[in-house]
């Protein structure tokens, strides 16, 4: 409860909280924002009471263009990496763009590979998963127990998880979109919860304005974040932009994951956000998975990004 008092958190405190994961985590600071490139295979100080889960994103199964002719292969690499983790995560979150073109065969291939982790997987769709008009293909597979286009909640170790959909009914000239119905549902869900409940909210498109000129933001995210304001610990996990970005604002930490398929350019660094071709021997260093650990009593979740290859 102590961590919920409104003193705010200074940057030093944030860094302390986020570096707890121990030796060997390589930190870089870009634009004043701490980022970590974690290390796999090294012992990490995870206490038994901690909850560890994994995030993977943007698998784009079916993609076969020069930026990565074998997106299924690199997803398989990610899954193999997950299998060798020293601490078995409790579950997996996939933040969308499972497939490239929403084809049944692509969903089948993705399932075949991801199921090898033998972990429960909590999905939210990316815009590439809902290319069929009525979102039937995604919902038939992953929509059980969800509302609308696939939003839902679940709880684990006292952490409240919220999966949101911001890739349907997009408006001309706009960004990602949650929509009135989903926002009402969210506000209703949060109403009865105590401020000390740690919240993890995940959606495909970033819930903060990363780069609106490329559509990297969500039009009505401010309303969603407004309803999360009084919670002491809020972590927003997103994908879509195929690179790590992090921002801390008040009690909220925003984080985007690497893709398992191909990198995209830094905002404004190229004429468009299209797939970025890197040298073949560098590809796996810009793809990866994200390891998230929650320890009771800590305000921040420890988020560690692990490239497929360093």
């Amino acid at each position, binding site marked *: 409860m102590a961590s919920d008092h409104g003193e705010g958190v200074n940057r030093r405190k944030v860094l302390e909280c986020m570096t707890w994961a121990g030796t060997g985590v390589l930190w870089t600071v870009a634009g004043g924002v701490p980022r970590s490139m974690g290390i796999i295979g090294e012992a990490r100080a995870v206490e038994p009471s901690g909850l560890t889960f994994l995030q993977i994103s943007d698998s784009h199964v079916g993609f076969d263009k020069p930026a990565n002719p074998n997106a299924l292969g690199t997803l398989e690499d990610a899954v193999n990496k997950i299998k060798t983790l020293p601490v078995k995560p409790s579950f997996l979150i996939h933040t969308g763009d499972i497939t490239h073109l929403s084809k049944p065969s692509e969903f089948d291939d993705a399932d075949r590979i991801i199921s090898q982790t033998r972990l429960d997987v909590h999905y939210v769709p990316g*815009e590439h998963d809902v*290319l069929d008009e009525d979102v039937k293909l995604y919902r038939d597979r992953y929509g059980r127990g969800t509302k609308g286009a696939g939003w839902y909640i679940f709880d684990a170790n006292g952490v409240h998880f919220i999966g949101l959909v911001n890739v349907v009914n997009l408006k*001309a*000239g*706009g*960004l990602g979109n949650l929509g009135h119905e989903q926002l009402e549902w969210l506000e209703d869900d949060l109403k009865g919860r105590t401020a000390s409940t740690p919240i993890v909210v995940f959606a495909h498109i970033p819930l903060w304005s990363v780069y609106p000129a490329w559509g990297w933001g969500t039009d009505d995210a401010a309303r969603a974040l407004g309803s999360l304001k009084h919670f002491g610990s809020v972590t927003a996990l997103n994908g879509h932009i195929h690179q790590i970005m992090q921002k801390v604002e008040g009690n909220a930490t925003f984080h985007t994951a690497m893709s398992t398929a191909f990198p995209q350019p830094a905002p404004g660094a190229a004429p468009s956000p299209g797939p970025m071709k890197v040298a073949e021997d560098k590809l796996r260093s810009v793809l990866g998975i994200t390891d998230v650990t929650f320890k009771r009593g800590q305000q921040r979740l420890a988020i560690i990004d692990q490239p497929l290859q360093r």
Partner: protein
Amino acid sequence: MGAIKRNVRVAVVLAVAIFAAGAAPAANTEVQIDQFAFVPQRITVKAGATVTWINEDDAPHTVASSDKLFKSKALDTGDKFSFTFTTPGTYAYFCSVHPHMTGAVAVEAAAATDTAR
């Protein structure tokens, strides 16, 4: 480099289209989808003209009119979508996958050309 070449090609296609428009009202026009943009972003055609969009990107896009008059399926690389505009007016459209991508087709009355001749 490829983009420049493509833009030249667009210009040629357009020049041909504009030239043809003078001779026959129902000229056809191509719009490239390139680097997450419709190129050219705004075109003017005569009523009866067919506009064809072709996706040159490595990402899928759609062509969806803002007032739901037309909507393509998701176009993969190299896929095309065509629509014939019969009524004068301005038709705004966007990519429903990447809605920051917008474009417009202005359709002029075909009769104006005929009477001018």
